[in-house]
């Protein structure tokens, strides 16, 4: 798998890079918990001057710093770490393939992702592409972009998902996460590759808001046989907007009783100096390998899974 990937990018003149796993800052996303550690100023001794370091949850910030410095299109295969994520399709330490294409539109990137996955999974069928809103409506009859609490609740009651009402309350994004995971995603199993594009703007993450329709973000996800494999963006390059999102996420953290996260100034400075227009995506390679080997759990493709690591 790694050989195929490296060859794939070699043919396309995309440069392989390596960035630190241990970083001085991390993302503010309240839904992403991180591992942190301390650098000791004096060996074997803890002191107030020790520097807190984070294991990366993804190489996104560092790679964007390279892009801002003029690297051109780049890719990286590396480990990423996410705390408290453990399950059949989650291991706290996992392998990411992340790449950025300077000057690519989202649809060009979608084509490239599909070609790579098709090559890896030996699939010749063309991918199934659908917008988030269409897919959501097709499965649930609900409007994903406009939150109507009554109809969301009525749908949950009718479909034996009473739990959602108490869990999600009036949080639109939470409702989308719940209904998408429980009702929508299972319908994607039949597709060898499925691309869901135009995610709702409230789930923009690090994607740019669509210039024509402010209700959606230039973000897409790739599902292979119904399993989420990757997440791609037309990258947000506006440093002011980026900082605003960090602040918003930090205030959500406060509401959720989570500690504040220091904004990554290196990253913000890089954006200020100018990130070229680009599209980027990260794929979970362990999950892809699981699908390629037709196994059911990440434990089958990781040498020593978390509980035996």
């Amino acid at each position, binding site marked *: 798998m790694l050989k195929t990937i490296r060859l794939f990018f070699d043919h396309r003149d995309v440069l392989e890079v390596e960035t630190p796993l241990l970083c001085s800052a991390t993302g503010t996303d309240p839904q992403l918990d991180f591992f942190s550690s301390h650098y000791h100023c004096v060996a074997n001794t803890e002191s107030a001057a020790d520097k807190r370091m984070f294991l990366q949850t993804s190489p996104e910030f560092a790679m964007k710093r390279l892009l801002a410095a003029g690297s051109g299109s780049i890719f990286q295969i590396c480990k990423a770490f996410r705390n*408290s994520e453990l399950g059949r399709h989650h291991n706290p330490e996992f392998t990411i393939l992340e790449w950025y294409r300077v000057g690519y539109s989202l649809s060009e990137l979608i084509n490239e992702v599909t070609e790579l996955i098709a090559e890896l999974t030996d699939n010749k069928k063309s991918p199934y592409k659908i917008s988030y809103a269409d897919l959501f409506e097709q499965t649930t009859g609900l409007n994903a972009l406009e939150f109507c609490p009554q109809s969301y609740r009525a749908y949950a009651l009718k479909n034996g998902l009473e*739990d*959602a009402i108490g*869990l999600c309350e009036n949080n639109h*994004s*939470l409702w989308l*996460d719940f209904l998408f*995971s429980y009702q929508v995603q299972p319908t994607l199993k039949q597709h060898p590759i499925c691309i869901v594009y135009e995610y709702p703007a409230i789930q923009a993450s690090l994607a740019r808001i669509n210039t024509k329709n402010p209700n959606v973000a230039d973000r897409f996800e790739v599902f292979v046989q119904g399993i989420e494999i990757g997440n791609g963006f037309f990258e947000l390059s506006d440093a002011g907007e980026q900082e605003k999102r960090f602040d918003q996420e930090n205030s959500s953290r406060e509401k959720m009783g989570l500690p504040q996260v220091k904004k990554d100034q290196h990253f913000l400075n890089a954006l200020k100096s100018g990130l070229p227009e680009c599209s980027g995506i990260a794929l979970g390679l362990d999950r892809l390998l699981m699908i390629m080997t037709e196994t059911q759990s990440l434990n089958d493709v990781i040498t020593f899974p978390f509980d035996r690591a």
Partner: protein
Amino acid sequence: MARYSTNEFKAGLKIMLDADPCAIIENEFIKPGKGQAFNRVKIRNLKNGRVIERTFKSGESVEGADVIDLETQFLYTDGEFWHFMEPDTFEQYQADANAVADSVKWLKEQDICTMTLWNDSPLSVTTPNFVDLTITDTDPGLKGDTSGGGGKPATMETGAVVRVPLFVQIGELIKVDTRTGEYVSRAKE
């Protein structure tokens, strides 16, 4: 009692849910790439045996249930309660009809059963998978019949009715699978 967060959920963990003790059967971690994580959990209510599905937001915690399993010996019933004893400590427990439930038809004096205690009182009784019981009543078998084909109902000493082969007679000891209620074989004294 300790509280357990969703990260500690695993099959077999006993928790309190809607004021009833429950056991987790299956726990699935669900997380959309950039969203809220959920735990979708299959749970058995230990009071009524019903299996339900519940979703928790990951990170939530629930109260643990003080539920333990004990090996106990069935002593006798007084009609209202069934009395059991833990052989090591001689501690005695009385279970009511709710706790004994369907196990009642397989309960033979002196047999060892698993008793589930919740806050130190009997919640349920599980009989061994196989029990040896004496037949107290059945139609006489036909001469020359070997095994196979048909069978007939037979009443056990505990009152249970089991389908047995035609050649098995009153007074014989047979082995029964309590999970299916089926005859397994003749048994030796």
